[in-house]
């Protein structure tokens, strides 16, 4: 069967070679179904205008099924020409299996810093296999009208943050914070990895954990759970069954005052909220402390080596690496910040606020993404559970730390 399959592939390659003169159509696999309209109306027309003869189709899958569906299609040989890359291991695995081409030689790769490329490289950084597109920044979005009505100043320290929450709670008009634990990932992504870098000092702690010199039972790794445990009191009634869309709606309908956020929410919130919004970075321990933010490399795009139109696909990828694309993308999707070394001018005030933190705070990425989620039990998934348990109060932060450390040490040599 594999033989026939290879033969079919050969034949189809030969055939497509013969049909050279016609327009070539490239298909992009992606999990960003939210962005379908933006790709169709803004990004693709811009590319096609500049590159006659190449047509591009954006074919997204729902995020939850993306990895499974993509892997099946790649294994069988029916996947699209261009593959949107998840950061780190999911893409590294595809590269190792020969499902992503090495793009180190691509001219526009020079437009990206080593940090920007780190999520899509082999561990030794010898090969880069996806062109970085954007990162997302964590922080808190707040209802500025509510803050003004209650006379709350934007908090910069943790004490101010909790004082603000107390004020909102005492007033009773608003639910202090919009977050639920039903879908689990928000608790880890917008909770733990949002406030955590201030405790473990961003890259310093993250790299120490990978090196094995820090443990998940160390205070800087347990403390974020202790802070999350205090959040429970400020969430809405029945937050245990509150889903991610529930939280978004709670906030944009003006019923909650603070939303622990990722910057990707900006464009959605802009269209749905009828009040003025602001944003602040995760509050620090004491005034004047260095602040750390999660500026997570989140999305990139690579080439399927089985593509019959590799050359045209590379033209497209080169364009994705250009400053032109960076400006187009960052403004079409405020909250997805360009990783391009060329500075991008953004129009959206909320996006400007988020990106301004890059100047005053130290950037880091999510602690669990690089290397540490390679084994079983999976540290990222475990972190979801631990963050939820901390908020619900079903597990003490110390126990959570010990459980995660034991799980990590069970397969990760530097932690043994």
């Amino acid at each position, binding site marked *: 069967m594999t033989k026939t399959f290879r033969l079919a592939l050969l034949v189809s390659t030969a055939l497509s070679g013969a049909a050279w003169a016609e327009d070539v159509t490239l298909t992009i696999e992606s999990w960003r179904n939210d962005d379908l309209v933006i790709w169709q109306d803004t990004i693709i027309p811009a590319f096609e205008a500049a590159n006659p003869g190449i047509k591009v189709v954006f074919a997204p899958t*729902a995020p939850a099924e993306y990895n499974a569906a993509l892997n*099946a299609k790649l294994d069988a040989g029916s996947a699209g020409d261009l593959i949107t890359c998840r950061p780190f291991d999911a893409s590294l695995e595809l590269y190792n299996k020969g499902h992503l081409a090495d793009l180190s030689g691509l001219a526009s790769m020079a437009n990206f810093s080593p940090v920007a490329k780190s999520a899509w490289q082999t561990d030794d950084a010898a090969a880069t296999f996806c062109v970085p597109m954007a990162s997302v920044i964590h922080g808190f979005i707040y209802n500025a009208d509510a803050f003004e009505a209650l006379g709350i100043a934007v908090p910069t320290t943790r004490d101010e943050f909790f004082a603000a929450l107390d004020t909102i709670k005492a007033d009773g008009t608003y639910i202090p914070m919009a977050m639920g634990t039903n879908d689990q990932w928000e608790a880890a992504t917008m909770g733990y990895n949002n406030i955590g870098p201030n405790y473990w000092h961003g890259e310093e702690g993250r790299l120490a954990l990978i090196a094995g010199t820090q443990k998940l039972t160390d205070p800087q790794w347990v403390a974020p759970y202790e802070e999350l445990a205090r959040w429970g009191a400020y969430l809405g009634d029945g937050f245990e069954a509150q889903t991610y869309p529930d939280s978004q709606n709670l906030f944009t309908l003006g019923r909650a005052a603070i939303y622990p956020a990722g910057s990707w929410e900006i464009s959605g919130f802009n269209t749905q909220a009828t009040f003025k919004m602001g944003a602040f970075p995760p509050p620090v321990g004491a005034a004047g402390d260095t602040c750390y933010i999660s500026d997570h490399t989140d999305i990139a795009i690579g080439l399927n080596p089985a593509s019959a139109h590799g050359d045209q696909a590379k033209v497209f990828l080169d364009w994705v690496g250009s400053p032109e694309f960076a400006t187009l993308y960052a403004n079409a999707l405020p909250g997805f910040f360009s990783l391009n070394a060329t500075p991008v001018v953004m129009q959206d005030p909320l996006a400007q606020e988020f990106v301004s933190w890059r100047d005053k705070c130290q950037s880091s990425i999510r602690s669990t993404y690089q290397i540490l989620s390679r084994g079983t039990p999976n540290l990222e998934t475990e972190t979801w559970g631990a963050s939820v348990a901390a908020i619900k109060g079903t597990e003490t932060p110390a126990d959570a730390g010990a459980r995660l450390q034991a799980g990590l040490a069970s397969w990760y040599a530097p932690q043994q």
Partner: protein
Amino acid sequence: MQARQNLGRTIAAHAVLITWTLVALFPVFVIVVNSFKSRKAIFADPLSLPLPSNFDMVGYTTVMHQGDFFQYFLNSMIVTVGSLFCVLLFGAMAAFALSEYRFKGNTLMGLYLALGIMIPIRLGTVAILQMMVATGLVNTRTALVLVYSAQGLPLAVFILSEFMRTVSDDLKNAGRIDGLSEYTIFFRLVLPLVRPAMATVAVFTMIPIWNDLWFPLILAPGEEVKTITLGSQVFIGQFVTDWNAVLAALSLAILPVLVLYLLFSRQLIRGITAGAVK
């Protein structure tokens, strides 16, 4: 006395049925009613009926601008009807062979055909996809029909052979004495008698096919062959916080199945009652 007892019983029967009918229809009611309301009204008072003050069709206008829902609907129809035809015809034939004839390996064959109801076919995805790529059937409705036929056959054979055992031997033997071929006996004598079972199998087979998300996603994600379930799923993913649009899309997704079922349910019941006429 007798009459009063009967009346009491009738009232009790209706009470039970009405209760469950309300339980069954309430969620559908919630979706449809709210799809006609403004965003604020959905969240403020989900149970109120659409009133002039909160009436809003914005969900439907959003949906109509996205995707070709009519084409999706047509694709779903073609795939479902095609698979249904294969499952019913081939399933009934196999069930007849198993229930009618004693031959070597009969039980084993029955068990072999029943294996398929024990493992989710989803697990064979990669091999199935490779096969479709090799035969050039990726992004065709044929691929879906083939997979759904394979998926539906085990249950069809399982249920139909159970029902075919209740068909009178005398009738079949009388046919044989009259010189009818085995094929004629099957198509002319047996098939009409198991119509209720066929109708039941048809409904059971149809529902998972119509509602399946996985194989359309893997085998036929192309715009021109997309099924309505996949189409509305992409849509829901895209507008997950825009509940006007989601509720409108769900209402539109319910509608065709409902119409299809209402059309079919008459056939189904006619089939069942026809079989009941001894």
